[in-house]
């Protein structure tokens, strides 16, 4: 077996356990999107075009609330800004691959493929470029079909479930469940806590703008706190 093939399979094996998170998350998105009145082809277009679960939930939520277009797009993009960091981090490892491959990789740069690839590339610094490329694609091979498949499954199931069974609280729970494990330090806690407090305090502002102001200040406070802590530690 070639080294690249081995790398690819290692990536696939590492990503398979993510099914436990991706399948219910994808189904919930399909379910809520169909309860919001979207057709199956619209839900599929949404998932194929954006391919980023959290921002799809955010956009769907704001579309239903008839928030202004600019607010919807800014909020959903803010959720995806973390991927700029992923792109920066992977560039030294994968930047030498052909442009066509990088263009395809960019589409498949999601939380799971990023997290697994970084861990693998840092743990095995002697990997060749083809092996790194193979691992990256291996890590996304189970993720992409599971995401698309489960959103479709959720959408189909959703059209069969009467709206009165709507889980109104599933989205808040999902987002909180997603965020809590990300709070790894006090600056993270400050960013999340301040952002929530300000958004609630500014809830009287026209829809969505309180969120934008609150989360921008929360983000800056987290970054500022981290900076201050590093200075203080010197």
């Amino acid at each position, binding site marked *: 077996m070639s080294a690249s093939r081995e790398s690819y399979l290692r990536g696939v094996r590492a990503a398979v356990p993510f099914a436990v998170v991706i399948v219910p998350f994808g189904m919930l998105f399909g379910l809520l999107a169909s309860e919001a*009145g979207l057709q199956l082809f619209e839900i599929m277009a949404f998932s194929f075009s*954006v391919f980023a679960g959290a*921002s799809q939930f955010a956009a769907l939520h704001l579309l239903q609330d008839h928030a202004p277009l600019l607010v919807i797009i800014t909020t959903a993009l803010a959720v995806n800004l973390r991927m700029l960091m992923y792109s920066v981090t992977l560039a030294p490892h994968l930047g030498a691959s052909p442009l066509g491959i990088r263009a395809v990789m*960019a589409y498949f740069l999601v939380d799971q493929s990023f997290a697994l690839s970084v861990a693998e590339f840092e743990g095995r610094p002697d990997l060749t470029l083809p092996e790194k490329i193979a691992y990256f694609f291996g890590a996304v091979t189970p993720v992409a079909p599971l995401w698309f498949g489960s959103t479709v499954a959720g959408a189909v199931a959703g059209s069969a479930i009467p709206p009165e069974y709507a889980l109104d609280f599933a989205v808040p729970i999902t987002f909180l469940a997603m965020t809590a494990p990300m709070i790894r330090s006090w600056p993270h806690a400050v960013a999340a806590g301040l952002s929530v407090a300000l*958004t609630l305090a500014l809830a009287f502002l026209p829809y969505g703008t309180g969120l934008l102001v*609150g989360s921008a200040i929360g983000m800056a406070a987290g970054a500022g706190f981290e900076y201050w802590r590093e200075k203080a530690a010197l």
Partner: protein
Amino acid sequence: MIDRTQFWIVVVVLGVATYLIRFSFLGLLGNRALPGWLLRCLRYTAVAVLPALVAPAVMWPTATNGQPDAARLLAAAVTVVVGLVTRQMMFAAVAGIGTLLGLQFLL
């Protein structure tokens, strides 16, 4: 009802912009360094936006006509605590939904 024009604009613009974010450094900018303050801010975007996005729905749920609801507040608190302790999204979500369903059954 979701406005279809708005929906398709969001699908296209969000899709293209998200792709450009992913492509940026991998595709075009290579090993150019980002300023430290920007990288620092990027680390906190998701953690600031995601909980704030749902905070109003936790405090003032539509299902109770905007009245704060003990079961939902407690379910949200359980989700956060279990997520912080176990670091597992699934455990947190299951604990939160379980708390809500259990309390609604009891109360």
